[in-house]
């Protein structure tokens, strides 16, 4: 399943609707896409266009109302939440706009979390390596509150890469950062994407960031209105 010629993420005619106070609401309508291993892929669109919902569905955090999604060959709609969690633990890394670090843990302990969930015995040394890779060796004993926004996002990136995921999902990874710091974070994400051959799927408003990806799609009211590749 890890053949580089086979797509790692496939979405076929994916729709998602929810029932709100004013009746059924279609968030996604008939989305189709394929993402190859090692590729960087951007999902762009206005607020409310369904970007984050699509990211959640592709990562197996939620299930679609219709259509199918395959992650590394696994049909997500046929898996229950437990099986999807198992898949996420093995294959997936996440970076969030609000970092989502646990405030009571040090930078190092935060990075150790995915390894601890796997029951890895060398969690601490691998976490240190990951922090070295994002340039935070000296900050490993700091708590999130003692770190700047950029540093917190670097810890989050270290956490996302530490267990060697095949695909990294990033939701507005620079959304909470200034332009310069955002640049650094992007550089870091793409460097890791390149070095580890990790597939990168990101949701962003940032046109520059989207432009750095291999391919992109644009959503509008839940539909793919444009798709393109950068050379």
């Amino acid at each position, binding site marked *: 399943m890890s053949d580089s010629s086979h797509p790692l993420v496939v979405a076929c005619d994916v729709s998602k609707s929810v029932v709100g106070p004013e009746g059924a609401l279609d968030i996604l309508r008939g989305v189709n896409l394929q993402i190859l291993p090692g590729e960087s892929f951007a999902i762009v669109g206005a607020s409310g266009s369904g970007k984050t919902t699509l*990211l959640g569905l592709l990562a197996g955090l939620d299930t679609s109302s219709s259509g199918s999604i395959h992650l590394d060959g696994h049909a997500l709609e046929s898996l229950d939440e437990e099986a999807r969690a*198992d898949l996420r633990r093995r294959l997936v890394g996440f970076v969030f706009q609000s970092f989502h670090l646990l405030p009571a*843990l040090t930078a190092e302990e935060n990075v150790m979390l995915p390894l601890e969930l796997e029951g890895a015995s060398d969690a601490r040394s691998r976490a240190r390596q990951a922090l070295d890779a994002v340039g935070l060796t000296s900050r490993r004993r700091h708590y999130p509150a003692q770190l700047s926004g950029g540093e917190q996002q670097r810890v989050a990136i270290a956490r996302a890469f530490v267990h060697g995921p095949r695909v990294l999902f990033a939701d507005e990874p620079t959304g909470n950062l200034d332009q310069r710091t955002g640049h650094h974070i992007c550089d870091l994400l793409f460097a890791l994407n390149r070095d580890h051959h990790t597939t990168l799927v990101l949701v962003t408003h940032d046109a520059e960031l989207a432009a750095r990806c291999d391919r992109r799609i644009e959503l509008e009211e839940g539909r793919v209105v444009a798709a393109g590749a950068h050379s």
Partner: protein
Amino acid sequence: MRMLWLALRSLRREWHLPELRTLAASLVLAVVALGVVATLAARIERGMLAGAAELIGGDIGVSSPQALPDNYADAARHRGLQIAHSASFPSVAFAGDQTQLLDVLAAGPRYPLRGTLQLGDAAGRSHIGQAPAPGQVYLDHRALVALNLKVGQPLQLGGRELTIAAELQRQPDGGQLLALAPRALMNLADARQAGLLDPGSRARHRLLLAGEPSAVDAWRQQVQASALPQGAQLITPEQTQERMRTSFDRAGAFLRLTALLSALLAGIAIALSAQRYARRKTAEVALLRALGTPRRQVMGLLLGTLGALAIPATALGAALALGLSQLAWLFASTLFGSAPTSLPLAPSFAAAAMGLAVLAGFALPPLARLAEVPPVAVFRQSATRKTRRFDALYLIPVLVALGLIWAQSQSLTLAGILAASLLGVAVVAALLAALMLWLARRVAPGAHPGLRLGLAALARRRTLSLIQATALSLGMCALLLLAIVAPALLQGWRQELPPDTPNWFAMNLQDDQREGFAQALEKIGGEKLNMMPLAVGKLTTINGQPIDQVHFEDERADDRADRQLRLSWADALPPSNQVIAGQWPGPHPAQAEVSVDTTWRDMFALKLGDTLRFDIGEGSIDAKITSIRKVDWSSFRVNFFLMLDPAHAGNLPHTWLASFYLPPGHADGLAQLSRDYGNLSLIDVDSLLDRVREIVDRVGNAVRWILGFSLLAGALVLAAALAASAAERQHEAALLRTLGARRAQLRVAAACEFALLGLIAGLTAALGAAGAGWWLGRAVFHIEHFMPPLVPLTLAAIAAALVVMALGLVGTRKVSRTPPMRLLREG
């Protein structure tokens, strides 16, 4: 006004928050628990006082060897009080060739003002009656047997022929509780006409009064302000018996203890809910501050919201307290005492005020901290400064708790023991939790993944874990004290009066009668016979100084110095006596020694080494104080203020005092015994024993009622403690699920986490409850050899740990189902 409106609007919007509902429910429960207990306690106390009034036959009275001047009765009439005259005297009754010395009470038509006169007719049927009409007399069973008479037959008493109209079964006792001889009740006018009450007779005249408590108090103050006639004494319910007073005190302490623990439980729940509410409000306060709202206005809004919640909750609590205590009274008044009393309103209002104090004390500190939230926190919550000056605010709940303990317990010892025990529990729980968190960091890497995650979870929420462990420990300790230690203390109290406790005393037994008496007693079924020597004398000098020349600070001393006193001696220290200073006399001391009870030590300001001279019979004895004893006067054993050493006291003129147990239905034999030993005085303490047992039962019933509220308060503490970390837990669960944690992993982690919390809480609580129980048993309830029930406490501690774990897991079910998408939605 605008602020009030804003506060009300804010409350309406936030009412769905679980912490606000828990806070309101805790407040209502605190008021209900305090109110119901105080109302029931007030009623029970009134009932007990009424019971004591039954013992003396009125609310208050005065007795005198001479007929009392009319001004006492006039002053009572003037205040609207009912009055009843009576007189008691010994007199010999004749029936055919039988004669018997009777203890006669001659009573006017209004007798008794309080309590009931229980009579039996010729067929043996019981009914309630009044004092006998002229020409009639009532005799008790012993008198009927001794004179070989039946109801309806005549007898000669005081030179008049009277008809026995009924058997005297139970009568208010005029405060004496002594049945020196078989009893008779006759008409007061008959006794006067027979000349039985003339000057020079051995009659003791009594005026009893009853009416409104305020009028009784006013009469009492008026009488106490002027000197009573020579030899006259006030008779008050409080003075009925030292033993009864001890029982009343114990009963009160029990009720107050239970109410107090319930209120403290509610206080803990309030503190936890307020803290959670404050945490939730931090972002909102930061936003309001950023939008330019002055700090004072923000605080005003917060306090207004709290007030808008507190006032209706308190009012509801007070109304429920009144309703429930009335309901309890309607359905179970017989459990608490039969005396009809009105519903006292004051305790519920006081409980409402105390509830507000609990709320202010426990909720204010976390909310006051919000004043320090800077506007910049809207960007980064970590910008919230931690200012030390607000740490002092956390003394408020401690002070409120201490104030509550003091106000409720009305006893420094009880307050001190409770405060020290709960403080000890809090400190030990916090230390144990801190130790566990410290270990968590060290043990975690090598531990089972579930345990490791559980420990990590506890460590992640360091402060919350400490608060949870402490609150759960305090809550459980209070519950264990209520549910296990209090009933054990009551049981201990009950066991002090086993069914075969000596219920008769015989005084005036001579040396040569001892053997015959013991045999005769055995024949009529008497058991547990114990005899002690008894010498009657007077204290004449202290350290050579005549007693009438010494000035005592204690007013009771002059009165006691005038009276004859009873001395005894024994080789060994009697049970229910404890030497607290000096040593019990050895077998052959060089000089006469005396052991003094603490009451006497305090009254006469005595100390070890002082020499007392007693005139006994024709001679006197000088004895040095070599020990001070603490005597448990509630033990119903024969006890003495003064005990001499047997080597020197053995030859003093003395009689013997016997105590024995006579099973029910054997009293007939006593009539023969008192005829054979005419010099004997028999004292019946059965009614007194019954009354104390009744008090224990009433308290037990009241405690059971209160326990229900306490359990509810305990459940609230548990809910609030577990809810305290719910938001963090949910966020963490979502993150861990996103990172691929399995549901089972989260559940095992939560089980380990709550089991550890529960174990710390259960262990500390059981230790605290056992320690506090042991201490309370000895220092407050004076129950000899009281041991807290360790096995039930241990089992309860384990059960508590399991309950915390189970409830934690139930709470976590929802948390572990938190959709991971939530994180993406949160941004």
